């Protein structure tokens, strides 16, 4: 367990620091965030035509209300946590890659739901928006990470108990 935590924290710190560097921001994070904004706007437009997206902003044309998708709202940090946990776990590489791919999708689906609900909550009530934005959705996204991780663990092949452990008790 200790080994898992040390490797997990090391990978996470490395990925997080890399994420904040200007080259990674420019090449990956900013284009990715903008594509999340476009995808959110496209989804909203399926049932609400008065919405536009530009850069990392989604705007309601009637009310003028807009949300900007910033660091912490793009699901990148949650993905980093999940990737670090899966890489730190002793498991076959094929399962790790499948877990990372599936986990990334699960986090991004949840994140799209977060962005869309926040977009409408903000037009309805500022206090509800702040609550959902700053506290509730943050916790729900991390629960999503935990669920994905626990489900993924169930797919891992069972390892034999180390010699001696079988005789314990």
């Amino acid at each position: 367990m200790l080994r898992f935590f040390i490797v997990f924290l090391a990978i996470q710190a490395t990925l997080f620091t890399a994420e904040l560097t200007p080259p990674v921001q420019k090449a990956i994070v900013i284009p990715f965030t903008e594509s999340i904004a476009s995808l959110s706007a496209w989804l909203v437009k399926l049932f609400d035509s008065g919405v536009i997206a530009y850069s990392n902003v989604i705007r309601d044309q009637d009310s003028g209300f807009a949300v900007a998708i910033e660091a912490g709202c793009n699901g990148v940090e949650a993905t980093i946590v999940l990737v670090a946990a899966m890489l730190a776990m002793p498991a076959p590489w094929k399962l790790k890659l499948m877990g990372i791919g599936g986990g990334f999708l699960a986090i991004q689906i949840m994140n799209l739901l977060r962005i869309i609900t926040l977009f409408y909550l903000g037009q309805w009530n500022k206090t509800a928006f702040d609550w959902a934005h700053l506290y509730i959705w943050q916790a729900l996204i991390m629960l999503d990470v935990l669920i994905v991780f626990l489900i993924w663990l169930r797919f891992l092949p069972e390892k034999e108990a180390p010699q001696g452990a079988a005789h314990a008790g």
Partner: protein
Amino acid sequence: MQASPVKTFMLKVIVWLPVCFAGWYYMRGVIGLPTFILVDKIMLGWLPDFIKDIEFQGHLLNVVLQFAPPPEIKVPEGQKAELLFSVNSLMYGYSIPLYTALVLATPDEERAKWVHWIIGLIILVLAQTWGVSFDILQTLLFKLDISLSSQLGFSSLQKELVALGYQFGYLILPAVTPLVLWIGFHQEFLGQLVPGMRNQFKR
């Protein structure tokens, strides 16, 4: 048909979460007190010439600055200028209701639950203190006029480290700490949720 143990556990967490968030918000004046005391000691002890006072108001930490005024600000001779800004400590403390919900949803002995919760709370308060302290620092360094922030005498590297510490305290610590604590304290239960889990960790 028996429900999956992961599903049952998560349903319990979802049930506990709103209760824990409500309790956390209404008790914020008490729960936030240790963080306030720690931040107050750290920041006033570190920058006594710049930070005059930190007041605790509900969940807001009001930071009162005093500084030698720039030439364009006129103050009576011998006096310093003052400025106040607030930090929302709850932004760094949502990990507390999340962790509490995870602990409550986990089947365990009453005493063990209390022990896990109290140890977890102490660590989460430290994580919250990190977040609030770096929020104050990044405001001082990056949001104030350069004529004021330069009075702190931070080097470029120190500024970079403050920026990294702030992002880490805002984006990672409140999110990851409750999960790490929960996994660390509940390996037995994890073994029930995920068969073979204990053997996976034994390496």
